[in-house]
């Protein structure tokens, strides 16, 4: 049966003029949330296996080189027995003098200068590593030992970023939920407004599926329209944000440029929302129709 001229135009009630805009807003939010998700994932990726899981231990210079060697061996042995330590290696003298060169200039390379020993440690914080435990364990072995936990502040930072990621995911889910609720409300408003039309359709012998098809078509079109408006607003917003981010040189968000996958995901909000609109409308209509004459 033809859907164009032959179909029953349900007319343009205000409720349905309203829905595309609400859907546009939802898609806009969803697109931004998805973009945010990808950017945040990028940030965590970058830092995750980086400094967050490293620790530097310095053993202060003492009178004899031999004593220092013993201390290093003892600390290494202790570290390797500690929970959450993945790797612990003493740096060679040249590496340490490289680290100190900016401080000591050329003299750092001189054999005369006593250099502190430095141990580079990789930890796995998920296995219950606590910097304080290491400190407590090593202090008795080498008094005055310095433990520099790079991860401490970075960990906080990354936890905040991950929290934000969770929020973004929650927002996307919330948006889907709200969209479904909105479509249900609007469909039922539509059914209410068009109750008379539907009853007459029934009286002249139209099947439920015929009526439901009209609604589903209408709502998927509305969903599509809303989604296109939303995405049409979201893309420039994202590009603008990206330009702003680059010009202000925010180093923490270095790859504001979204990947192809990200753009595809953002674009996927369009078919997603019209699909959600269509299926919700269809289900709502079929359910409601069976309660009518």
């Amino acid at each position, binding site marked *: *049966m*033809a859907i164009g*001229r*032959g179909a*029953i*135009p*349900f*007319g343009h009630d205000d409720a349905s003029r309203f829905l595309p805009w609400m859907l546009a807003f939802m898609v806009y939010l969803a697109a931004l949330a998805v973009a945010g998700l990808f950017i945040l994932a990028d940030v965590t990726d970058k830092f995750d296996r980086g400094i967050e899981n490293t620790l530097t231990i310095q053993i202060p210079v003492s009178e004899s080189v031999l004593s220092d060697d013993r201390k290093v061996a003892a600390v290494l042995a202790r570290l390797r027995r500690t929970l959450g330590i993945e790797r612990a290696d003493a740096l060679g003298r040249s590496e340490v003098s490289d680290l100190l060169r900016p401080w000591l200039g050329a003299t750092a390379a001189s054999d005369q200068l006593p250099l502190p020993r430095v141990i580079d440690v990789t930890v796995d914080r998920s296995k219950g590593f606590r910097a304080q435990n290491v400190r407590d364990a090593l202090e008795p072995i080498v008094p005055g030992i310095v433990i520099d936990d790079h991860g401490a502040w970075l960990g906080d930072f990354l936890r905040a970023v991950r929290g934000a990621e969770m929020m973004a995911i929650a927002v996307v889910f919330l948006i889907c939920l709200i969209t479904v609720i909105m479509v249900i409300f609007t469909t039922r408003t539509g059914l209410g407004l068009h109750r*008379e*039309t539907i*009853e*007459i*359709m*029934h*009286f*002249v*012998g*139209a*099947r*439920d599926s*015929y009526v439901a098809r009209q609604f589903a078509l209408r709502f998927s079109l509305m969903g599509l329209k809303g989604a296109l408006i939303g995405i049409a607003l979201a893309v420039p917003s994202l590009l603008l944000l990206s330009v702003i981010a680059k010009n202000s040189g925010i180093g923490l968000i270095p790859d504001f440029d979204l990947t192809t996958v990200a753009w595809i995901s953002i674009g996927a909000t369009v078919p997603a929302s019209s699909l959600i609109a269509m299926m919700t409308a269809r289900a709502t209509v079929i359910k409601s129709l*069976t309660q009518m*004459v």
Partner: protein
Amino acid sequence: MTDVVSFENVGLRYGLGPEVLRDISLNLEAGSFHFLIGASGAGKSSLLRLMYLAQRPSRGLISLFGRDISTVPRRELPALRRRIGVVFQNFRLLPQLSAFDNVALPLRVVGVKQSEIRRHVEELLTWVGLRDHLDAKPATLSGGQQQRVAIARAVISRPKILFADEPTGNVDNQIAARILHLFDELNKLGTTIVIATHNEALIRKTRRPVLHLEDGVVRSAAGDEDAGTPGDDKPAARLATENGRPA
């Protein structure tokens, strides 16, 4: 001789109210033509609503085309309804559709070809004097014009039964006669017809059998004792008394 409509001890009450209809028993033979009369509020529209499946009875048995309607599954209702035409008392035209599209509706839902729809609908609307108003929305039509669109919609699909509720309340006597003529033609083609009306002139003129609704029951024809027009072999309604025995 088959009964297309058959009521057995049918009662109807709305919600918790009093019984509007109580103990209605009647049989309408295929091809019969009845008027339904009664005071305002007597239950004429309610009785018709039961007949065209807009309302379920509170008690009793209703059969259409020999089928007990309480056993008809929902998915078979459309097929049943396609054999029934209804003129509602308040017209119930779809406000967003033109006169043409309103009348075309019953043909559209069964998938009649567009060209055929156009021919039939235009012909019928011309016949009821609305040739110049094909594209007018109901709100821009006069009361009588709306009523004629409603009548055209009810008859366009040549239904097996036609129920008309006060179909001449907004038209002058000349148009009323024309509408009655249309119904007569349909009746000759085999359509069973029931018309609820207050228009006594109409009833007097046609001398068709009359169902008189009073106190919630259908009484033998009032003011036209000889229900079934004697000497005419038109099928008539066999009325039943309250306790179900044929009168």
